[in-house]
């Protein structure tokens, strides 16, 4: 585990997680018997070849989909049997997502995109504004509040996506190949941003193919054929 900072407390725990997909006549075991714990403040990279179950694991961690079987705790509370509504509430308040393809809504401005989770949370207009502007400043995109995503570069769009993810001060940031659609310079910029966020205390879990970026995390989990084959801490780059 991380040698520099002692984790405060357990944030996420998976125990005996299985995930099976059925499509037509085919049964695919995406995850098998996964055991995992992530503590507050950790920076975890999930690595593995294509089809090893990285994204599925991240989706389960992010409560985007439930496991087929096994136990899942979030902040010490079992969550695998929660209703869709309750899961949505936890995603909204406790989890921030960053996607490979940014997933900004084209019809909304930068400000409105970043505001979206806060809107769903029911915060007042003033509080939303304060948090959104603060998050956009943090990713150095405050000057683009009125822009539409189509008016931004890929790197800028991903920065806005990061701002959206952190605006609600989530307990954990889940990033799925956040640099996958970016050139190396923009990719470095986004990873630097994540480093800064971690340094400020944010728990981060990132899926990446890029070994160099994975090395920035303090802990690396290797998946192969839906199983955790390696889980080791390493020093920051």
């Amino acid at each position, binding site marked *: 585990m991380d040698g520099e900072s002692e984790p405060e407390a357990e944030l996420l725990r998976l125990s005996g997680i299985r995930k099976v997909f059925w499509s*037509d006549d085919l049964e695919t075991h995406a995850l098998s018997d996964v055991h995992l714990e992530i503590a507050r403040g950790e920076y975890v990279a999930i690595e593995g070849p294509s089809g090893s179950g990285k994204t599925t694991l991240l*989706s389960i961690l992010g409560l*985007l989909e439930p496991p087929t079987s096994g136990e899942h705790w979030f902040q010490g509370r079992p969550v695998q049997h929660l209703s869709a*509504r309750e899961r*949505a509430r936890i995603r909204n308040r406790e989890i921030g997502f960053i*996607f490979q393809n940014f997933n900004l809504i084209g019809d909304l401005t930068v400000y409105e995109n970043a505001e979206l989770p806060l809107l769903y949370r029911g915060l007042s207009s003033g509080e939303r504004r304060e948090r959104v502007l603060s998050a956009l400043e943090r990713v150095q995109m405050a000057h683009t509040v009125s822009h539409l995503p189509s008016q931004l570069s890929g790197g800028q769009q991903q920065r806005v996506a990061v701002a959206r993810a952190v605006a609600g001060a989530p307990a954990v940031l889940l990033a799925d190949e956040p640099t996958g659609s970016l050139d190396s310079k923009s990719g470095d910029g986004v990873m630097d941003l994540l480093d800064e966020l971690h340094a400020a205390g944010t728990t981060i879990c990132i899926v990446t193919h890029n070994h160099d970026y994975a090395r920035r995390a303090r802990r690396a989990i290797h998946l192969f054929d839906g199983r955790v084959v390696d889980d080791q801490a390493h020093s920051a780059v």
Partner: protein
Amino acid sequence: MAQLWADLRFALRSMGRRWKFFALSIAMLAVSLGATTAMFGLARSLLLSPLPLPASEQLSVLWTLRAEEQRFKASLPDFYDYRARTRTLSHLAGVRSWLFALSLPDRPAVGVSGDHVVGDFFGTLGVTRALHGRLLTKEDDTPGGPRVVVLSESLWRDAFGADPNLVGGTIQLDGTPYTVVGVTPEDFAFGFPGQIRSSLWVPLSVGPLEYAAEIREARDRHEFNVIVRRKPGITEARAQAELAASAAGITAEHPTHRIGVRLENLHTEAVRTSRELIWGLFAAVGLVFLLVCSNLASLLMSHNHARRGELSLRSALGASRLTLVRQLLTEAVLLYALSVPLAALVAHNLLGLFYQFTATDLALLGIPVKLELSTLAGSLLVSLLAGLSFGAPPALSATRLELAPMLKESAAAASPGASQRRMRSALAMAQIAIAQALVLCTGLSIETLVRQLEAPLGFEPKNVVVGAVLASKNEYLDPVRVSTFYDRVIEKFLALPYVEAAAINNSAPPHDFESIYFEIEGQGSEPKPMFEQHDRISPGYFGTLAIPLLSGRDFSVADAGGPPVLIVSKSAEDRYFGGHALGSRVRLDNEKVTREVVGVVGDIHRPGLGRSTRIEGYLPYAQSPFQSMRVLVKTSEPERVRFEFQKLVSSVDPEVPVVEAWPLEAGVTWYAIGRSLATYLLAVFSITALFLATLGTYGLASHLTQQRTREIGIRMALGSPPLSVCWLIVRSGLSTVAIGVAIGWVLALAAGQALSRFVPDALAFDTFWFATAPLVLLVSAALACFFPAWNAVRISPAATLRRP
């Protein structure tokens, strides 16, 4: 609330970006909702709102019932008896329509429709104030009293230039001076249902004295429409019971005069001929509106499906399914709500058009037709409910999300799984089934109406012009003189090269004018047989209207001075004469002579819903002439004859007015409606309905195929022949559509059966619609599946797979 505003803002922005789609949707909604609103506005004004008379719910028409519950007007002695015996009625008035010849300075006399009234006519209707002067009172109806008349505001304005000094002055009616005592208020209009609107009112007692004296004693002359007003708090049933007792008393005193009584609410009576058509058209436009909604649901489903990536993201960011559904519903409801102002505009413009051909009797009572604010509010409510109802399935479908794959890839590229495909196919099937059922129900409703409207009448009104001629001069009280006058008029018309035939009748078919009981010599049956209509006609009448002579002979000139004769209709022969009427001898209730049946002719049918065959007897007019007759002219130049009608009549007697000349085809209101405007409108509705259902099916089938674009690419990449792939896709899409069509077909069949049980004359099945509609939908679906598939196989598989 903040989220709702955000949803609204986003919905408006989204509409702005896809304005063509939304503009088309709003236009479709506006037209269909507008038509539905207009029809409802019309139904509400005419059928559901009270008549524009004070306490109109207290007003009823009193019908005399004779054998087999046949409705008759009342005779004057009966009217007086009812009035003397009643304790439940506050007012009674008898009305007999009359055509007056109004003489005007420096102009030929004109025919004006009016009423001879008995009793307190205006008091019965609740009209107490005149625009000028006074109204008639029951004191005016005194034999030997001064000859007084009240004019309608429109006659006063149009014929006398709104001369305020006219009140107190005299005018000439039928060559006799009458003192004008008043003018009715501007908003007062009256015409008894089935008649034409009256322009003046004269007390019967001071009208043609010979007529008044004769009719005062005749219990068998059922010539008065009686309107009654119940005392406050008296129910119609109670008044009915009292009048029935009075009728029983009259029968006890006059055993040969067996009568009953039925009270019919005046409003019900006024809407009788229009009700079915108005509700039928309302149902037709309502179904078209539902089809539009159903189509929009299909379009929204495609539209929402294309946004599943965005919806997944919103869900990932914490939006619950309820929140997403609410957002999509906000958009759908906004779409419907935005169509309401346009729909109101459409409704406003259509209202007058619909009114023209649906409300004939209702116009007589001057019922104002307008779009009430509450009707528009109702329209908005219906629109919002439709938005919620038809927006919900697409919203529920689109928010059934599989988040992880949607977020990983672009939403459109994420191939749906088997369960998703099954779900979408089921939804598509349901929508197609609804569209199919709706279009078939619309077709059945429309076909029912059209068949009723276009059913054969038993006579040919085409190219026949009718002129209402009023030989009301005193010299024409002589039967020989009036017959001679009309004979000469007929001769004048027949001399014209463009006139094929001409004849006269005291009424123009198919309107019922006068029924009469009769006895067949040697039978003495009870109840008495009855002609539902008996006409006084000239020789050549049947030829003029192409009514076939089935046996015996037509009337001839020789009948004028010959023995009394009669011609009967086929239905009368079958019903009363055992199929052999020729040679039978008949005595009509109002005659002392017996008539020999010399001919049998084809039946005339009443047009419209609930149509029936008229049991009819014909008399030679020369043996029993009227002063007011209809001259019917069959011509190759109807407009020219109409124009020349007065000139021709004036050439025989310049003082005889032609009240009006009109094409019989237009005069036969229902027939005219069937042939022209209503048929045209209904045809437009039916084509629209089929077009909308086709469009919706095309959209759904196309949507189903487009979802399989990646699959097509994969199959092509693996080397499948293009046509084979196309056939696979078309077959698969068609099977979904075919199941939907079949379900809709069965639903419509069941609906048709149910409807035909409750609605008389409603069609339960129509071969054309039940064969054509499914075929059109299936062909459109096949094309909708084929074209996207064909486009997909024509480009490289790699490009297909790269498509978002």
